[in-house]
């Protein structure tokens, strides 16, 4: 009591004059300025693009094709020694000064013309924050070869869609190019340009992109909304050493996966790991995706009926119900709280060695080998990483390529052609092969890359992708602008079964169908009587008169 009175007295007796106030305020402002400048100067800045010497130009005329007009720019071409780390080159055994792809459109473009036209200009790109290392890797080379400046904006993946849609609908023209999820491509369609005219101008052969990764980005009249940047399919990855120790063979079906998990569970409890890592399952579209990748392995589940937009999640033989039960069971074998996993959390759990098995995009397998990222790298442990096709239900599809990402160019872009050149530079055959092998989390979608045994050494999952991509299937909703809303609504209903608030898997799926039906009905799709587009790669190729590349 007395103490508080003393404080009050002291305060009332102090005179805070103008001069002393200004002194303190000035000192504070000065400190902030000095701190800010110091922080800016101490910033490590951009990665320096490795320059080449005269001797390396000899390899240009080796097995790789390089146009004569491109030779002066060769120092800026993506190449293994300019991108890959020492341990990666050692691991793959490549000659670092040789190109790993035989064709690459960067090597055929007349960059002299490009530089004379675009030097000094700026091009902006919005990208997913988790994958920003991919464009950053190629930023110095592009800036060198074009003379332009590239500005990158990283956005968290959970909010990428709504942030971009806000920019596009408002017509701000803030981004010259943006990373767009293929699953929601139709929502972006009205705002993007068709890149085919630019591709023709620069001799860029877009047909080298596997149809599985072009399905969603192709418009009704064949328009292509961007170069594929990240072409994902799921694989089944496992630490074989843990299964061997438990006397287990590699599971081929989902039932076998669950049996293996049950055997591994007590062993994992003793050793501090879990049988399964759930890739992602957080409430909303992630729940829907994860369930969906399992559900399409049951042949009666097709997302919608093939002759109408009527939702088909349960399946005539209740394959969807089985898939949801499997999803929930897998969560019980995963670290606690995995029900709300997002990509980043799942990845950290896997790379930290918390799991024996998982399904994921091909980035996880590659990153597992990275001794700087992964505690389970076979390069410095006794782990054996195996990559297999997705576990089977009553059939086996390569899971839907719902996370194909492409680089779209908004109509409001202030520099469309330069944006196109950046997108093809970053996503050429060689660039994308190097990205996939460099563990950036961004994967190639080119037939010439994923079928190349030399590249398999650097990205072991590509072999599996090449063998299964031709069987891929996709949600039919990806052809609707409402895809995101549909996935969110369905995912929220499916989640109720996972968190126990809905005891019946079938009811949860029926509720999901009802929620989706409402959206489709409001938007008028149920009234039109139009069939949905093909949902498998095979059918899409038939409809578009294209070859479905197979091993």
């Amino acid at each position, binding site marked *: 009591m007395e103490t508080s009175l003393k404080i009050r007295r002291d305060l009332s007796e102090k005179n805070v004059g103008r001069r002393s106030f200004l002194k303190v305020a000035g000192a504070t402002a000065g400190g902030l300025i000095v701190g800010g400048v110091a922080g800016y100067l101490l910033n490590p800045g951009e990665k320096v693009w490795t320059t080449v010497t005269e001797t390396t130009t000899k390899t240009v005329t080796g097995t790789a094709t390089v146009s004569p007009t491109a030779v002066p720019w060769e120092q800026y071409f993506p190449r293994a020694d300019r991108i890959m780390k020492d341990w990666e080159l050692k691991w793959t055994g490549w000659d670092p000064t040789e190109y790993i792809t035989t064709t690459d459109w960067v090597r055929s473009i007349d960059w002299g013309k490009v530089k004379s036209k675009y030097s000094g200009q700026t091009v902006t790109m919005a990208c997913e924050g988790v994958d920003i290392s991919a464009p950053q890797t190629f930023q110095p080379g592009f800036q060198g070869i074009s003379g332009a400046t590239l500005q990158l904006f990283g956005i968290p993946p959970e909010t990428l869609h709504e942030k971009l849609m806000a920019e596009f609908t408002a017509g701000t023209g803030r981004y010259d190019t943006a990373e767009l999820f293929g699953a929601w491509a139709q929502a972006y369609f009205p705002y993007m340009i068709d890149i085919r005219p630019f591709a023709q101008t620069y001799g860029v052969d877009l047909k080298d992109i596997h149809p599985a990764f072009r399905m969603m980005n192709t418009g009704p009249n064949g328009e292509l909304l961007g170069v594929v940047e990240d072409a994902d399919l799921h694989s089944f990855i496992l630490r074989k050493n843990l299964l061997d120790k438990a006397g287990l063979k590699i599971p081929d079906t989902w039932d076998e996966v669950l049996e293996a998990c049950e055997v591994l569970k007590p062993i994992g409890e003793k050793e501090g790991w879990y049988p399964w890592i759930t890739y992602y399952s*957080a*409430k909303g579209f992630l729940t829907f995706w994860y369930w969906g990748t399992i559900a399409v392995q049951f042949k009666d589940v097709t997302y919608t009926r093939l002759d109408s937009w009527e939702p088909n999640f349960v399946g005539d033989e209740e394959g969807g119900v089985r898939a949801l039960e499997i999803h929930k069971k897998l969560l019980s074998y995963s670290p606690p709280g995995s029900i*709300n996993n997002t990509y980043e959390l799942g990845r950290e*759990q896997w790379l*930290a060695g*918390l799991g024996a098995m998982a399904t994921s995009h091909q980035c996880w397998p590659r990153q597992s080998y990275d001794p700087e990222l992964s505690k389970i790298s076979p390069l410095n442990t006794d782990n054996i990483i195996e990559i297999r096709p997705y576990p089977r239900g009553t059939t086996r599809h390569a899971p839907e390529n719902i996370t194909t990402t492409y680089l779209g160019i908004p109509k409001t872009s202030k520099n469309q052609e330069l944006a196109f050149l950046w997108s093809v530079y970053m996503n050429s055959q060689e660039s994308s092969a190097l990205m996939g092998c460099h563990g950036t989390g961004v994967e190639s979608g080119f037939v010439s890359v994923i079928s190349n045994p030399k590249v398999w050494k650097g990205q072991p999952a590509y072999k599996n992708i090449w063998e299964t991509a031709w069987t891929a299937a996709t949600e039919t909703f990806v052809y609707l602008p409402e895809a995101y809303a549909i996935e*969110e609504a369905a995912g929220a209903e499916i989640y109720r079964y996972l968190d126990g608030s809905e005891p019946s898997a079938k009811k949860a799926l029926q509720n999901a169908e009802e929620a989706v039906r409402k959206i489709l009905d409001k938007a008028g799709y149920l009234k039109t009587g139009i069939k949905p587009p093909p949902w498998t790669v095979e059918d899409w190729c038939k409809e578009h008169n294209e070859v479905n590349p197979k091993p």
Partner: protein
Amino acid sequence: MRKLNPGLLMSIPTLLFLFFWFFFPFLYNIYASMHYWTLYRPDIQFIGAENFIEVLTSIDFRNAAFASFFYTIICFAVELPLGLGIAVLLSREFKGVGIARVIVAIPILMIPIGTSIMWKLLTMPKLGLLQYFSEVLGFGVIDFYGNFWLASLLILLIDAWQWTPFFAIVLLAALVSLPREPYEAAKVDGASPFMVFTKITLPSIQPVMVIVSILRVLDLLKLADPIFVVTKGGSGTETLSAYIWRVAFKPLDIGYGGAVAVLYWILMFVLANILVRRFKSVIQ
């Protein structure tokens, strides 16, 4: 000619600001809520109160409202007494009280998302520091994300860690500004510290307590950051703010989202009125 009121003239910039930043968006939101309107489609369709009916019959909305009130009550119930206790401690003079006051204030200066991420890292299964101690002490790995009660405990920890200092600082200011005479009289009368606290201190700082409590309650009803980071709205923790984000901003359904926002505003308006009227005499 009638002279223009100078007071009115000087208020015009503020009134314009209020109109464009509050009234117009608010009225436009009501207009949007009566339409089927998603930003994917150029056409909009008047549907009257259909969105409102859908919201009020939605189990997700009811669950979100419950979660909002639940977190408001538990966070307030912890933060107010804890903040008051800290304020009383900091009102005493002891060595280092100045530094103690600064340290107590630090959490408020952190951005809420950063605080939530920090706590998430501490509680990650097998990887977080708190989980390590939990295993060492024999409690095993705690499921902070997948279990409603444990997730709620974590959300309470995050919010209390960051906002208890808000109570502490405001109440400290009230404590140090109290007149000394009642205390001197109480000392002469031989009153115990407990009596002094309950009969003099508490009633004297009651107006400040009520005001800061009303502000904090209305703030808690908007709780969102820990939800986004910890559970993404899963495990039954989705509050109204998180719900609006999910149904309005993600699918860009501004019709339905607008209806939720209007109902949310009505809820806050009614509650704020009740609180202010109830405690009007105390504040005045």
